[in-house]
């Protein structure tokens, strides 16, 4: 495969600066509503704040790839005396938890860096984080070209994993007949 230049977007997360307000979740869900900003609902957000004030745990984490299987083991990390589950840091939309799934359909969610139309100069979670817990950074990297799955394909893939290809095909066929 050919090598291509790719802009790598990243968000630097400074846990110490997080004030726990969850504006990131709010604005993410509003931006991805259809029409844009017509509703908001942190449960649809592609960023989640793992928050446990009494233990001073404030950890924003972004939705990554969908995965059909959960991990075999769940490790625990202790950092500065605070215990985190491995899952706390994990970006996957996975069967072991509710995070990063549409609350109604259960379809997986994934952070798109607000590249949606119109593209934003930086992800809105970063813009709304006045405390600079989230800092946007860009860099260029050379990577191998790859074919990316679109949003619908990821969704379909998760449905296939859940119900099997046959059932999904049958349902789609039945639905297209009805309409």
């Amino acid at each position, binding site marked *: 495969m050919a090598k291509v230049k790719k802009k790598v977007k990243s968000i630097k997360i400074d846990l*110490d600066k997080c004030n726990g307000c969850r504006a990131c979740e709010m604005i993410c869900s509003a931006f991805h509503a259809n029409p844009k900003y017509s*509703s*908001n*609902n942190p449960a649809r957000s592609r960023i989640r704040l793992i*928050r446990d004030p009494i233990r001073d745990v404030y950890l924003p984490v972004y939705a990554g790839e969908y995965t059909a299987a959960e991990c075999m083991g769940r490790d625990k990390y202790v950092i500065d005396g605070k215990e985190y589950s491995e899952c706390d840091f994990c970006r996957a939309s996975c069967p072991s938890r509710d995070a990063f799934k549409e*609350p109604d359909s259960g379809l997986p969610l994934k952070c798109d860096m607000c590249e949606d139309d119109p593209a934003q100069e930086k992800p809105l979670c970063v813009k709304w984080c*006045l405390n600079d817990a989230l800092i946007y950074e860009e860099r260029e990297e050379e990577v191998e070209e790859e074919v990316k799955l679109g949003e619908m394909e990821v969704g379909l893939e998760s449905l296939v994993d859940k119900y099997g290809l046959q059932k999904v095909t049958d349902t789609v066929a039945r639905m297209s007949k009805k309409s």
Partner: protein
Amino acid sequence: MRYAETGYHLEIDLSRGNVERVETDPKLTELHLGGLGTNSKLLWDRVPPETDPFSPDNLLIFGTGLLCGTPAVGANRTIVSAFSPQTLFMAYSMMGGFWAPELKYAGYDKVIFRGKSPNLIYVWINNDKVEIRDASHLKGKGAVETAELIKQELKDPNVQVAAIGLAGENRVYMASIEQGRSSASRQGIGAVMGDKGIKAIAVRGTKDVNIARPAEFLELSNEVLKYIQHRAENPIKNVEPIFEGLGSPQEMKLIDEKWHTTGFMWGNARTRRKDYWTKDVEEKWKETQESMRTRLISCYNCPMKCGAIVSVPGLSTYMMKCYSKLTYTMAAFSDLDFGFRIAQRATDYGVDGFSTPQTMAFALELYEAGILTDQDMPGMPSDTEGRFYWLLDRIVRREGIGDVLANGTYWAAKQIGKGAEEFAHNNIKKHEQLPLKLGMLNPVYFLMYCTGEKANITQIEGQFPQEPFPKREQREEFVKDWIQVPDEKFKQYFLDWEPRGDNSNPHYPTAQMSCEIVDWMEKMHYIDDALGVCAGLSSFPLKPPYHIHNYPAFISAATGIDMDEAGLTQVYRRNRNLIRSVNVRRGLRRADEKPPEDHWKKRFPELEEKLLDAYYQFKGWNKEGIPTQETLKELDLAYVAEDLEQRGIIKNG
């Protein structure tokens, strides 16, 4: 579809164990917005005025503001209403935090409790699924601990819990409802929750809150964010640090407490210590604060950091906001280390950080004066700090003298007698006030202290500086970017207000000006409390991001209701008059409207009467402070006028 609001109430009858989801009338949103406005409408409609606060017929209403759960920055307030055992009037204690947005996401604008549960219960609201659950295992547990235990029990860290501690269970009048970093503390609202047998309300919601005109609404919210940044970079000049910025007073961030410790009163609101704040004290307090404060934190969707996680070595962690940092410290003539320590226990017990320390200081004064004796205080330690813990433990359990003190200074003094009433000197409408004693009467503050329906100065003051700036140039600079004024004339009032001479307190601002200034400040609080926007970004600090000129656009874009400044002013007046009428029906009259006698050294009885007359007239009220027929009718409150007339409270015509 309903916008900004969900359009549903959750009605819970605790006597019958019945839960209903009830659709609300959108017309009421147009008339009252939400939050405090619609709470007061429910109390007017459904609770007869003779109802005892501890009767099953008293409603306990958890109302979210209209904008809670929308992208509007800082819209996160829960307004809790009931008839108050403390003041006997309408209580509307409020809390920020995360509970109100979560309730909106669960699909409800309010939770309305009636009746009483025979056993201690907690309520679990999970979207459409609502359960009344046994809470016998939580009996006696601290409010903070209760929230943690419920989250574990429900296996969901995203559940938001509002809970009472021991004080609420025992119907202590100063009991609060605690919710993470926030609490609804005033007017005995936690006692009503305990009386109904509710230990906690846990909420989790994963539904949408909708906006009528999304792009417009987001633009407005972005402007607010930008203005917050602007204000962070441009603190207000020529004022004490505490007035420079936005938010509630930045007690968790600021170390410099010169203004409070040397200006406010210590002990039972009597002793001023002008020389208290020294370099040594500052160093010691800095060390204490920095070693115990783990993180500065906010409420939902707000970039401010008004609260903190506090970890005192050896004690369990809790969250603190604002002025409770100083109330115990100063009431006990102690230091910040003690303040942080005792506040941990007080927060878990769930008590109001204003009334509780003042009541304890009051008890110790009575003891010093021989009115309370060793017989009343068996086994009380000899040091003040030890005595505070001793008293606190007894108050929340209603043990011995604690049972008397648990009703606050006003009622306790009545019960103790022997001249104790002289010591309950810092009350308005039977409720403890900020420990503040000043020299010269300020006409604007006089009116706010007298007539505030909540009897809480911090929830009526805000937009207009507390005192004149010494120099004209300073005043000119201040008014330059004062975009929040409803009318240009307020700039002139401020420009002409002098520390001394003809244009100074108590005769300037004039009665008319004072009425207008108070009306402006009140208006902003009433709007905030209906919308659920934190006063810290609106009605409380100088030059806030929300004001009368941008609020109508927020409301219109969020809800689709056509709203302009005149319309919003009308809603404010309607809500103001409705709450006044609820209280008038419960007996509120002119005689109740007075500040603590010793609040100012220099008092002017004639002028004060004139001020009150002018204010009542300005409001369209009679000499007793009761809204007139015409006023009520003009505000679509003819049904209120009719009721007051039938009861013989007002006359026709």
